[in-house]
């Protein structure tokens, strides 16, 4: 008869990028249950809407997370703009799209690097992070910041890009795509990678829906859902279809993210080709009154921004449901049946961001 034991895992572990704790219930080496704990870095950022006016709060929203910073700023601004009925200039929507897609490339390359590191594939890790530096350099050139660069404001964006800058981004993207090719080939076709990821941590399509999975986690299980299809920002003008996996395993999640990098390159190029001339923001008059649930596709998945205004400059409520909040329950589900040694890698495959989750 199998011996049942409980093994505490995390919040500090060499493979974990952020603090999450799991009480793993094991039968011999097989995981039969897991209870997640967070709460090591709760900041209460949502509460600050009571003390910062709705325009100042953009800076708080951008600091919910480093990697998704631009997307959080955009999601918050779009939710406020919809409450207030503000139509921002098309150029601002394109600029937001370009920065957010660059953030997706940054995030996915960071994650692919972490995955390679977790597999013990050090050279692949270094290649991913070397390539990621080029995107950070482009953030620096276009905004002056490398991680949190504060370009969003209610009513548009704060910074513009001239023709030379847009050409430079295009050249960088073209160059990166060439350099990404061998990395992609390794992730998708290499024997060792397939051996490590195939058939591991399977989340069925039904479980993905029932457990509320989002982003590459949901699409890796065969669900064709990507909120960019709703056409917010400039996405309505761009050509894209959700990238979907079929097997629902760790490999499918890796493949979806790797292919989404190429998709982001295409979206950036198309946005640069189509970006219209014009202003980058409109004046904002009055205060928000009403409510709106805004959803956008962050690199880790769908994020929900709920804004409720009361007609004053302070919002009644701002709620951010981050992708990791939704991906923890399916992670617990997919851990069941795996071996203890696979747990770190499987946690990584949800691309956890606990800072986002705890806000």
């Amino acid at each position: 008869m199998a011996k049942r034991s409980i093994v505490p895992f995390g919040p500090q572990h060499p493979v974990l990028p952020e603090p999450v704790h799991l009480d793993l219930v094991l039968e011999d080496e097989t995981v039969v249950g897991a209870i997640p704990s967070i709460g090591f870095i709760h900041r209460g950022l949502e509460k600050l809407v009571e003390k910062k006016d709705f325009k100042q709060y953009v800076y708080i929203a951008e600091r919910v997370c480093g990697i998704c910073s631009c997307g959080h700023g955009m999601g918050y601004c779009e939710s406020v703009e919809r409450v207030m009925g503000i139509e921002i200039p098309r150029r601002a929507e394109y600029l937001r799209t370009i920065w957010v897609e660059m953030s997706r490339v940054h995030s996915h390359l960071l994650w692919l690097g972490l995955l390679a590191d977790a597999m013990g594939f050090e050279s692949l890790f270094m290649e991913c992070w070397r390539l990621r530096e080029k995107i950070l350099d482009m953030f620096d050139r276009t905004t002056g910041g490398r991680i949190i660069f504060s370009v969003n404001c209610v009513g548009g964006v704060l910074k513009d890009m001239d023709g030379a800058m847009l050409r430079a981004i295009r050249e960088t993207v073209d160059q990166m795509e060439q350099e990404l090719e061998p990395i992609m080939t390794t992730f998708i076709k290499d024997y060792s990678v397939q051996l490590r990821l195939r058939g591991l941590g399977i989340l069925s399509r039904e479980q993905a829906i029932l457990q509320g999975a989002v982003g590459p986690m949901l699409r890796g299980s065969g669900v064709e859902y990507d909120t960019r299809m709703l056409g917010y920002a400039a996405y309505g003008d761009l050509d894209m279809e959700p990238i979907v996996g079929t097997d629902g395993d760790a490999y499918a999640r890796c493949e979806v993210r790797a292919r989404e990098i190429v998709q982001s390159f295409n979206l950036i190029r198309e946005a640069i080709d189509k970006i219209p001339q014009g202003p980058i923001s409109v004046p904002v008059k009055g205060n928000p009154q009403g409510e709106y649930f805004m959803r956008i596709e962050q690199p880790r998945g769908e994020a929900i921004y709920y804004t409720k205004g009361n007609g004053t400059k302070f919002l009644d409520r701002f709620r951010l449901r981050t992708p990791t909040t939704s991906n923890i329950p399916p992670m617990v589900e997919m851990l069941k049946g795996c071996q203890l040694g696979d747990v770190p890698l499987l946690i990584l495959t949800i691309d956890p961001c606990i800072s986002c989750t705890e806000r």
Partner: protein
Amino acid sequence: MQVKEDINEIRPIEKDEFLSEIICLKMDAWRLVQICAVRIEDGFELSYTFCKEYRMVTLRLITKEQEEVSSITQIYPCAFMQENEMKELFGVPVRELAPDYHEKLYRIDRETPFKEKG
């Protein structure tokens, strides 16, 4: 690309219809998207949002301050994180919550910090 219609509906619901409506959504393969509490004058405004394909529906439940709300974790097990959050931060009494972290999800010193403004 073919832009999907952004259906984003907020539907008020009575307490006695609440669980049966949630069961119907589950049977129809709707995905739980988020749960949110908002403090109102003498209680809470609770929003449960669900998605199917690109349609989004929010069920809006109004409760009094000490009035218990049934947990939906028996129907949607993934609700446990967000229900624990609204219990811990706002003090919404949630019945039959599993697993119940007993106000220790976020390990914060202050009790129900989001319940009162300021």
